[in-house]
């Protein structure tokens, strides 16, 4: 059924989308009000005189000219694409075009519809940007998590290394302490041999006695190294050991290096536990060393340390207490923190009690607490029964 041209004219003039017809001279033959308004013109400003290229973004002209020619020649019947037009004000208008070739006034021409998609495109652009930002955030989040993990691992590594150094330092200090006395004896012995010989008073008996004594001292010094090595060398596999024996061994070991402090052990139970005996030794030795330092620093009149082992059906309890006056209330909550120390830097690393807590909690699955008990500090190590 043929339709009156005026209906089409009415339709296009009132259409919500832009409609145009361009002739083979590239001039607008028809522009509907919607398209004219989209570009900031009145229809009569464009029709008959204006090349369509003058309302196209310069960057888009090569593509549009090529499209125009292909459609005009009939090479492609129609095309649907996105492009950029220029508003009269110079503003860029992003458009979607559906173009086809028609016969208009017996001439091959192009007709098409245009939608302004600037808003959509801006929204899409924004979405894209946001997606990119989100991706960036995601990737940087991973990076930040990686960084934080790396920093944490690095901190752990430093702490472990420092604790190894601290253990090494303790070992060196322990050996130095244990060796000074025998070194002095050996030194005196050698010097006396020389002096006596120089005086012509060296007897066989004197010589024998000094050699015997020297060998005895050398054996003791060698034993000291073994003791320290056993003490600080790591064990790989956990094994069963007597808690009371282990505690007694540490106390005996510690007592060798302090002769001015009264050390009492009060073992109430005999218990076997599974783990690394050296770790327990290190924990108790650290507590004993701290107690000794506090007692010496505060020049307590009758310095004393008590180590007790008690327990029940569910757990063992080791207590190390001293009479050095206790830990000030304002720092008692901080003593297990890494790098917290009241000693000056040359003597305290601030890692002793941190290692104690780490070993007790992580390796022995126990707890360690501290409180002031009248005369001094009291550390309690609670170890669950296996």
């Amino acid at each position: 059924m043929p339709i009156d041209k005026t209906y089409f004219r009415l339709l296009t003039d009132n259409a919500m989308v832009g409609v145009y017809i361009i002739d083979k001279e590239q001039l607008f033959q028809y522009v509907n009000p919607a398209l004219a308004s989209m570009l900031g013109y009145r229809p009569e400003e464009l029709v008959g005189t204006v090349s369509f290229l003058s309302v196209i973004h310069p960057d888009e002209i090569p593509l549009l000219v090529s499209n125009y020619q292909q459609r005009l020649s009939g090479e492609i019947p129609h095309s649907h694409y996105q492009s950029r037009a220029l508003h009269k004000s110079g503003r860029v208008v992003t458009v979607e075009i559906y173009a086809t070739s028609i016969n208009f006034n017996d001439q091959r021409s192009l007709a098409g519809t245009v939608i302004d998609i600037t808003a959509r495109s801006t929204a899409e652009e924004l979405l894209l940007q946001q997606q990119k930002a989100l991706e960036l955030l995601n990737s940087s989040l991973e990076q930040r998590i990686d960084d934080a993990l790396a920093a944490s691992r690095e901190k752990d590594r430093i702490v472990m290394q420092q604790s190894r150094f601290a253990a090494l330092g303790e070992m060196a200090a322990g050996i130095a302490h244990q060796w000074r006395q025998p070194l002095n004896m050996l030194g005196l012995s050698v010097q006396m041999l020389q002096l006596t010989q120089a005086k012509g008073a060296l007897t066989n008996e004197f010589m024998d006695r000094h050699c015997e004594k020297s060998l005895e001292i050398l054996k003791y010094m060698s034993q000291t190294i073994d003791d320290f090595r056993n003490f600080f060398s790591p064990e790989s596999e956990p094994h069963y050991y007597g808690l009371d024996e282990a505690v007694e061994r540490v106390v005996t070991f510690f007592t060798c290096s302090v002769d001015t402090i009264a050390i009492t052990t009060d073992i109430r139970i005999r218990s076997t536990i599974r783990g690394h005996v050296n770790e327990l030794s290190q924990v108790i030795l650290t507590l004993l060393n701290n107690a000794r330092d506090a007692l010496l620093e505060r020049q307590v009149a009758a310095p004393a340390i008590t180590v007790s082992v008690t327990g029940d059906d569910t757990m063992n309890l080791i207590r190390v207490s001293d009479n050095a006056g206790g830990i000030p209330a304002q720092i008692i909550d901080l003593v297990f923190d890494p790098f917290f120390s009241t000693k000056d830097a040359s003597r305290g690393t601030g890692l002793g009690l941190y290692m104690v807590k780490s070993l007790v909690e992580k390796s022995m699955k126990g707890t360690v607490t501290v409180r002031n008990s009248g005369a001094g500090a009291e550390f309690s190590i609670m170890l669950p029964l296996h």
Partner: protein
Amino acid sequence: MRCLIVEDVEFEREMMGIFLSDYADSDSADNGEVAVEMFSRALAEGRPYQLVCLDIQMPKMNGQEALKRMRQAEADRGVSTHKAVIIMTTAMNAREDMEEAIWRGDCTDYLVKPIILADLVALMRRYTLIS
């Protein structure tokens, strides 16, 4: 010259005694308490010790406390010019403590163990106990 060796390790006490017997009449004590008693008695009897070799780490009473009491005993007797030469002997590396003690005038000097006997002789010479 009279000298007092204060040292808790028997072998060291004995060696120091033998060595110093060439220079002085030497007595010995194995802890600070006994040493202070001997030092005070010698002062009271008017035949004081000119040299005291005093170990720091000892049971009962340590060297620092003994030093304080010896100087107090001298002060009580009004001794000011001919005080005993007291040389602390220590296995510790407490150089600062020692230097502070010298600066305060409590001890005369110190030797870090292992003791080199020639150093002890040099100190005796420095403080004009021997020529």
